[in-house]
């Protein structure tokens, strides 16, 4: 274990080495005053040029939020959050009404930021057949690439703000249909003040030719990010969607409360992959992002399929349960997760699989890794409704402990109301095998590398589910996050 050093510069150096996305971009940002009132909600809506129905939606959510209390049931120690001390809208782009039309209109600093993050905003720079990106900084979508190429197939891929303006019928139909603003405290907050996220619509029978990706970046200080993503996969369609995120290193805690809603119709398939790498705070737990996210997919159609894959390495506190509501007969939900916590990080993450339709299936594979002083919990619910004949679930959660100061916890819930259902849950907790370490050391592999190797092997079942571009990144991230954990 790394000794706590009183020498701040050293600490900073080490942290800097570990979190290479911790830089800030000096860009003129239009930030609204801190505080949250009905006027704030109106102001956010006005800035985004939204129609009346959208404002109504937000206000309803805000009024409901006022009646709610912050959830305390998670195995997390969440410091008091002052919701009046956050700015709810920050725009780093000098935008014209319709958004930037060409790259020339985007602040070069912003362009540079995304370049530095490895997210090319110029289509010619992207690998052939590569990834279409919606780049979001603070509250605003900076640029969505390959829109034209996708539009030829009828695919809509744009920022949420744009979707509200250009495709109101779709947004009205599906927004809030999976995660209602009444769902939970953070969902209500997000519904009131949400800013840009991505909107994806894949028409009937279309297989999306490239990976779609959204990259979220928090830049401005004193703000929170409240993005909202909505994906609708119409009958017989397919899409693979990637999500990445980073934030600068700051001593303050920044709040990220997002909602992701996915609607999967008949025989459609959606793959949703996340590499979550928000700033986790320094060694002493100072700073870092509070990541309180509601992600849920509604598998409305028959034989539809949704697969969540997540690699969680960042954030000071993670509260996140990507879920599947298996409504259509024969629908299939999957959840693959690697959650790594180090230093003072805390994570309470898992999934909910709600079986409603007949012959629905779900698989949950969760791998938790705790190091340092961190606390890592898996919390999951498998619910089988009365009419879910032939429902089948298999869950496996393994926890790996690196060090004797950290904790690994498992809280699975099973609620079965149908006699034909088969629900299985297995969990194990152990530490890294000394034999394996010894074997590696013997062959000249140093301790840290050996741990990285073993951890990667342990998480392989999940990493294999990631699209190639992400798998490489995720593997590297796991190794980096584990630096200095043993020694």
């Amino acid at each position, binding site marked *: 274990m790394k000794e706590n050093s009183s020498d701040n510069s050293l600490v900073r150096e080490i942290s800097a080495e570990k979190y290479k996305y911790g830089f800030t971009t000096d860009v003129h940002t239009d930030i609204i005053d801190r505080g949250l009132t009905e006027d704030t909600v109106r102001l956010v809506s006005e800035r985004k040029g939204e129609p009346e129905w959208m404002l109504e939606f937000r206000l309803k959510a805000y009024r409901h939020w006022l009646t709610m209390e912050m959830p305390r049931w998670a195995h997390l120690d969440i410091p008091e959050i002052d919701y009046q001390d956050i700015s709810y809208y920050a725009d780093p782009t000098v935008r014209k009404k319709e958004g930037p039309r060409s790259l020339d209109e985007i602040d070069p600093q912003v362009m540079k930021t995304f370049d530095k993050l490895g997210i090319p905003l110029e289509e010619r720079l992207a690998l052939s057949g590569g990834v279409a990106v919606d780049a979001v900084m603070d509250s605003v979508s900076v640029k969505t690439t390959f829109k034209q190429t996708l539009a030829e197939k009828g695919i809509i891929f744009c920022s949420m703000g744009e979707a509200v303006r250009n495709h109101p019928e779709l947004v009205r139909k599906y927004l809030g249909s999976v995660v209602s603003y009444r769902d939970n405290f953070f969902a209500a907050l997000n519904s009131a003040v949400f800013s840009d996220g991505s909107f994806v619509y894949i028409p009937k029978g279309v297989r999306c030719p490239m990976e779609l990706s959204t990259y979220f970046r928090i830049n401005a200080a004193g703000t929170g990010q409240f993005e909202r993503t909505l994906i609708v996969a119409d009958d017989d369609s397919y899409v693979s969607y990637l999500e990445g995120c980073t934030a600068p290193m700051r001593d303050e805690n920044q709040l990220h409360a997002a909602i992701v809603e996915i609607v999967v119709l008949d025989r459609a398939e959606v793959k949703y992959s996340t590499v979550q790498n928000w700033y986790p705070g320094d060694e002493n737990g100072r700073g870092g992002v509070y990541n309180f996210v509601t992600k849920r997919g509604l598998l409305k159609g028959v034989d539809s399929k949704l697969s969540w894959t997540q690699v969680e390495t960042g954030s000071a506190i993670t509260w996140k349960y990507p879920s599947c509501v298996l409504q259509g007969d024969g629908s299939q939900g999957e959840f693959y997760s690697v959650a790594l916590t180090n230093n003072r990080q805390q994570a309470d993450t898992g999934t909910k699989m709600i079986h409603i339709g007949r012959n629905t299936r779900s698989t949950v594979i969760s791998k938790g890794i705790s190091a340092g002083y961190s606390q890592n919990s898996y919390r999951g619910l498998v619910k089988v409704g009365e009419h879910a004949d032939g429902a089948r679930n298999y869950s496996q959660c393994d926890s790996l*402990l690196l060090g004797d100061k950290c904790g690994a916890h498992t809280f699975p819930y099973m609620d079965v109301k149908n006699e034909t259902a088969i629900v299985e849950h297995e969990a194990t907790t152990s530490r890294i095998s000394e034999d394996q370490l010894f074997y590696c050391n013997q062959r000249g592999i140093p301790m840290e590398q050996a741990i990285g190797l073993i951890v990667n092997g342990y998480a392989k079942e999940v990493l294999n589910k990631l699209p190639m571009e992400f798998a490489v990144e995720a593997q590297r991230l796991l190794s980096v996050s584990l630096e200095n954990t043993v020694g």
Partner: protein
Amino acid sequence: MKPEQNYIELFNRNRALIDSGSAGAMNALRDRALDCLVRHGLPHKGLEEYLHTDVAEWFGPDWGLNPARIDMHVDMAQAFRCNVPNLSTLLYFLANDEFALSQTAARASLPEGVFAGSLREAAGSRPEIVERYYGRSADMDRPGIAAVNSMFAQDGMMIYVPDGVVIDKPLQLVTLLHSPVDMMVNRRILVVLGRCARLKLLLCDHALSANRFLTTQVMEVFAGPGSGLELYDLEETHNANLRISELYVSQEQDSSVEADFVTLHNGRTRNTVYVTLQGRGARLSLNGIGAIDREQHLDNMTFVDHRVPECTSNELFKYVLDDSATGAFAGKVLVRKDAQHTSSEQTNRNICLTRSARMFTQPQLEIYADDVKCSHGATVGQLDDRAMFYMRQRGIPEQEARMMLMQAFVGEVIGRVALEPLRDRLNRLVEKRFRGELSQCEGCRACR
């Protein structure tokens, strides 16, 4: 008005009567218990630990209480005849919550220093033990019924086995619920085992009258260093019976405790087990069977606290739910920071036989030490189709095949029962239960 309010008022009104029907250390705890009930109230559905059993609601009706210790006129020996073949036990009775000795137990001579008798009497005659242990591990500051039980309990049983004493013959404590009116029964059991002491204890719950009963049972077990306890808790009551039991076990170094809960016939039952492993090398085995049907409800919650290194805990709970029965199991294992080399295994397997049967299961691990081996597994499903097919193929009728599979399913738990005659008996009882013949318990003649 909150349900506990009635009980607080009732207690305040009858305090003198309750005290006069009890003794010493039991009375001394009542003030603190009252304070805890006022502060925490009765456990209700809003609490995570009581999600599936609304205990507070059970306290709603106007239950009769017997603080004046009115004699209920039950001839225990007449009412109860234990017919477990080859099981020779020392028999003790609790008529509702009043201790009574059987003739065999009265005649038997226990090893020197052993006390097995009325808790109220012990509070008078062995105050040094009762004062030291009574209420020590029953935690009244957490949601539960320890507080309300401590307020109203007037009697129960105490067993004290001094250092080095081994009692070969199992002790059997039979509770007979009998009352002309709906009644609330609060009983208390205290078991103290000295260094290297050994005890086998069988608890049986029976109901003699058709009236409704609300039973609260708080049992505290102190297992001294190197001691061994085998505890079997068998419930065979009736559908109108509400039972909440709390078992607190505190284990010293190298002690070994096996506790088996068998629920074959009940109304609504909630069993909570808190085990504290506080001496190195302590071993715990917790097992449970729930074979329930109709509207019956069974909720077992276990909490195993590994406080020190090198302890082992093993849990196996199996449920078979028929008709509209609901089952719940929540098992939590906490491994504290210094409890290295802990080995903990927890398994919960359940079979729902009908559409209206419902099962909730919630195995939990909370681990703060790194050099440990912990696992849990839980399943909810049906009988194995392939096994059924195999048996049908060999000419075994469907009904019979089902029976065999169900028996095999719970057989794994019964197999862990160390007391052989009881094991055989349980196998028979379970078989009868699955055949639907166990609508009454055989043990008592008074059953309808």
